[in-house]
């Protein structure tokens, strides 16, 4: 009986992490598009590509981590109570991890935005400095 309960646990766990990853990445990258347009100064094609690449990376990392922690190892008491406790620890842990990854990606977006703004400003200053002697 032990095996079938653990398999039930796996069958519950897998769809949950798939759905969570899907919804988080959908919300993140629907809004990430705006950041990317800002970072690349409105160049549509390169913004879209970068957004897509980051989305693929996000999916790969999170689904990989979710599968990595799937295994129920150690002592299993063969009761539904213990199964629910284990599942809640796994799903809760994965959810916290997902939140941290979300903030990490947001941090990347904000840093890129700041840096591109700075470089844009520097470039404008440089152009002004170059143009001044001619004027």
């Amino acid at each position, binding site marked *: 009986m032990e095996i079938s309960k653990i398999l039930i646990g796996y069958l519950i766990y897998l769809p949950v992490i798939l759905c969570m990853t899907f919804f988080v990445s959908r919300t993140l990258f629907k809004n990430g598009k705006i950041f990317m347009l800002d970072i690349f*100064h409105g*160049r549509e094609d390169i913004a879209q*590509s970068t957004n897509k*690449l980051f989305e693929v990376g996000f999916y790969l990392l999170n*689904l990989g981590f979710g599968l990595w922690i799937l295994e129920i190892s150690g002592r299993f008491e063969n009761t539904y109570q213990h199964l629910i406790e284990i599942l809640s620890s796994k799903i809760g842990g994965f959810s916290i991890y997902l939140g941290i990854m979300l903030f990490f990606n947001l941090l990347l977006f904000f840093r890129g935005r700041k840096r591109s703004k700075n470089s844009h400003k520097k470039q404008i200053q440089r152009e002004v400095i170059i143009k001044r002697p001619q004027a």
Partner: protein
Amino acid sequence: MYNLVSYSFYFLLVCSVILYVGHLCYRNGHVFIHALIPASPDLNHQINRLLLVGYYLVNLGYAIYIISEWEQLQDWRTAAESLARHLSQIILMLGLLHYVNIAALRLFLKPYQSFKS
């Protein structure tokens, strides 16, 4: 029998993941190669194709090699666990490599960073 079932599941899933990711990178990487070498679109196309083929060779080769070192399985539980472990290894590695690639692209693109419209 458990081994055979998990091999077939593993092979299908890994192949679809690798092919899908390669296709996405091929389609979206075009823009970056174009930003690096803006002069000749023909050369860009060839470089992109070569990169795609190299990616497929390395990743599919590694994925197939892992099958040869699979442990003996006794029941469905160990089958599911080992399947998840091997899949997660490959997917995590792909993800990490992907982020490293994005960082490398940033480094390469730094001298060309005037993405002005």
